[in-house]
């Protein structure tokens, strides 16, 4: 008990240092937790959305999966097929679907609507009400477009861009730019949900004409009669389908959609987690340095405990308990703060234009496990070495004039530190130059960077004495006795000087990291644009954003 009390009071004795250390771990835990909670929530609400999108369709007929990329365009289904399927036994209703991306509405000032993060979709209003996923927005004046001269627009886009019902607007379509009368606002699935889409809709014949040059449907959705089974209907219509056409069930639709959402979410999650991992590595360094420093300051006390009969195990326990306490506090606060981070991520997504369905706050079991493993794990792992050093404290340390467990070995620090650093550098170069794929590159780069950081950390004390003597020279000259004291004091205990300096080093590394990342992102975007644009001129509607760089 006294040892626990000793640990607690020792922590209290260097409150600020431990508070900052804990804060570093808290931030790492909170980021991880926030990312996991928000992506879990996102996944749930998108899965929910998949369910809603496909809830009406018992089956879907489409071009077979092996015929081209769905995003690039696959053969259309002939309209007669829809009629044939509709007349099959067990089919209650069918609705062909015609849609095309990059259909752009032009507002009253003649500006094209910016795509933002979403896609701009042109859509044919389904001819079967029971199979429609778009609805007239209930504002009293909106109605469904009918005939070749009318269109509707989703109410988010419409209201944000000042589209007034009853006025005429130009819409750019694959078939050319024409003007139509806006007869109403519409919504997709749910009036409050916006899945980054901007939707323009006409009645089906108009849409097919504009989007598919009078051709057929992209998909045909169907609804089964009460009591009919999917298998029977597939068997019945199977014979009429060509080899390039397939029928999938509602569940397959939902699964595919969920999978597509999941891969996007995973991409987002991994990107965000990468930041969390960087923060965690940095908190690891900070906790390591703190425990090393604090243990060094208390070495005489630990020696005294050894004199009075503390076993090596108990001394290591003192350090371990302190790490555990920091870890527990960091885990609990990190979990709490993580919920806030999750709201922040959600808010950032919403403000980028997506209005996702509200989802409950999902704190999954894995999220809590991750928080505990990370919060306690990072502190315990990084405190292991200081704890092992503490084990080596002898009783005589308590009686020594200038106690040090492990007299600093300059040569060894230089050799070991340089070796670790060089291995890190080699890994970095391998990662950069070996022409690996993006996913393969992560490991050598990450481990390489980590090893280089470690190497510098090990070498630092060996350089601290000469560096402080050289760098301290002006202070020595300028500030007489104070300067001299500062210079010699910094050189006296190179380990302490190096530990303090490495906290700053890590801070600087963090700042450079963020700066380099930001600049690289920008450069990459510019390069991609440059690669994709080979023209001398670029005509943009409503501003070219960053596209100017593509030409220069």
């Amino acid at each position: 008990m006294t040892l626990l009390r000793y640990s607690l009071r020792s922590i209290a004795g260097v409150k600020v240092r431990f508070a900052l250390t804990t804060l570093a771990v808290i931030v790492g835990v909170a980021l991880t937790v926030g990312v996991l909670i928000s992506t879990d929530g996102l996944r749930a609400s998108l899965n929910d959305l998949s369910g809603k999108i496909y809830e009406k369709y018992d089956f879907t007929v489409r071009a077979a999966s092996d015929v081209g990329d769905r995003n690039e365009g696959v053969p259309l289904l002939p309209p007669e097929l829809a009629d044939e399927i509709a007349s099959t036994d067990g089919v209650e209703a069918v609705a062909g679907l015609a849609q095309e991306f990059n259909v752009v509405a032009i507002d009253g000032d003649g500006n094209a609507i910016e795509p933002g993060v979403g896609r701009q979709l042109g859509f044919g209003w389904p001819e079967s009400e029971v199979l429609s996923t778009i609805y007239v927005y209930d504002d009293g004046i909106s109605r469904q477009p009918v005939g070749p001269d009318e269109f509707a627009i989703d109410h988010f886009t419409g209201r944000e861009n000042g589209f007034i019902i009853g006025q005429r607007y130009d819409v750019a379509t694959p078939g050319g730019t024409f003007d139509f009368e806006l007869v109403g606002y519409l919504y997709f699935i749910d009036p409050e949900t916006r899945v980054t889409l901007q939707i323009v809709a006409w009645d089906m014949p108009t849409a097919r004409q504009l989007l598919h040059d009078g051709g057929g449907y992209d998909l045909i959705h169907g609804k089964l009669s009460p009591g009919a089974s999917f298998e029977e209907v597939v068997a019945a219509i199977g014979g009429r389908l060509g080899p390039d056409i397939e029928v999938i069930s509602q569940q397959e639709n939902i699964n595919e959609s969920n999978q597509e959402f999941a891969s996007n979410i995973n991409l987002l999650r991994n990107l965000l987690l990468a930041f969390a991992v960087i923060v965690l590595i940095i908190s690891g360094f900070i906790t390591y340095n703190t425990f090393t420093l604090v243990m060094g300051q208390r070495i005489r006390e630990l020696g005294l405990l050894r004199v009075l009969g503390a076993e090596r195990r108990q001394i290591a326990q003192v350090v371990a308990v302190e790490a555990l306490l920091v870890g527990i506090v960091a885990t609990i606060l990190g979990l709490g703060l993580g919920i806030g981070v999750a709201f922040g991520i959600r808010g950032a997504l919403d403000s980028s234009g997506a209005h996702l369905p509200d989802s409950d706050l999902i704190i999954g079991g894995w999220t809590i496990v991750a928080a505990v493993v990370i919060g306690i794990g990072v502190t315990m792992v990084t405190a292991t070495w200081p704890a092992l050093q503490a084990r080596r404290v002898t009783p005589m340390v308590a009686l020594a004039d200038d106690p040090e467990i492990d007299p600093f070995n300059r040569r060894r620090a230089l050799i070991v530190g340089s070796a670790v650093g060089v291995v890190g550098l080699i890994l970095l170069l391998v990662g950069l130059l070996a022409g690996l794929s993006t996913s393969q590159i992560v490991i050598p780069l990450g481990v390489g960077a980590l090893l280089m950081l470690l190497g510098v950390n090990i070498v630092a004390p060996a350089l601290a004495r000469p560096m402080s003597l050289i760098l301290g020279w002006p202070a020595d000259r300028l500030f007489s006795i104070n300067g001299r004291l500062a210079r010699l004091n910094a050189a006296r205990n190179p380990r302490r000087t190096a530990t303090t300096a490495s906290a700053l080093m890590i801070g600087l590394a963090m700042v450079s990291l963020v700066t380099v990342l930001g600049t690289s992102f920008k450069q990459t975007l510019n390069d991609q644009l440059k690669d994709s644009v080979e023209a001398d001129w670029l005509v943009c509607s409503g501003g070219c954003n960053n596209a100017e760089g593509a030409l220069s």
Partner: protein
Amino acid sequence: MSDASTLATETTAAARAVEAVKVYGSGETEVRALDGVDITFERGKFTAIMGPSGSGKSTLMHCMAALDNLTGGQAFIGDTDLSSLTDKELTMLRRDRVGFIFQAFNLVPTLNAIENITLPMDLARREPDQEWVDSVIATVGLQDRLTHRPNELSGGQQQRVAVSRALASQPEIIFADEPTGNLDSRSGNDVLKFMREAVDDLGQTIVMVTHDAKAASFADRTVFLADGLLQGEMLNPTADQILDYMKILQVGQFVKGIPEGATMEEVLEYMKDLDD
């Protein structure tokens, strides 16, 4: 105290050293801090070890108290040969059988007085004998200071806490390293009196290293060490007698002309001439 009488009547030594050798460094820089010391500390006695700086007195104490290892020879606590023990066993021995008092008090700054006093027993996960601890605290007069941290106590009070800590676990032997070195003479006197009482009333065995003749005069027996060798001993000496003997030891090291095998009286006579 019933323990006191039984301890006192046992005949085996509380601690002893046989041909104890301690060498620091090697080659050119070799220092023989102990050069073959034979000594026995009796149970229930207060023994002082004296000697000039560098005589090896602290080294002897550290090696006998299981804080440091001998290079050669043996050290015993009771019948236990320290050189035969593992690090863990040495730890247990320090915890259960030895008490310590240091010059620099060596209290844990974050623990209060009573927590410091019971620390060795806490480390051993042993319930302190409350009655005994209370009586020790009452003897040294710390009742009102138990919840104070070391930095809230005077030097004398801190050393009384350290004395209480050493006594509280009723060890077989207490080693004290210059216990009055950092104290003013009055506080030092108090501490020495407590140690004397612990021996007389409680039957405690105490070995104290000191270079203060006044402190050594509280002991039953004073042994003298110089150059890593035992030079002699005195039973129940006064401070003045000790000072005189110390002079011989110090002077003898560099003054030639004292005839080999001179008696103490002859040496004192010789020194009187020097003073004149």
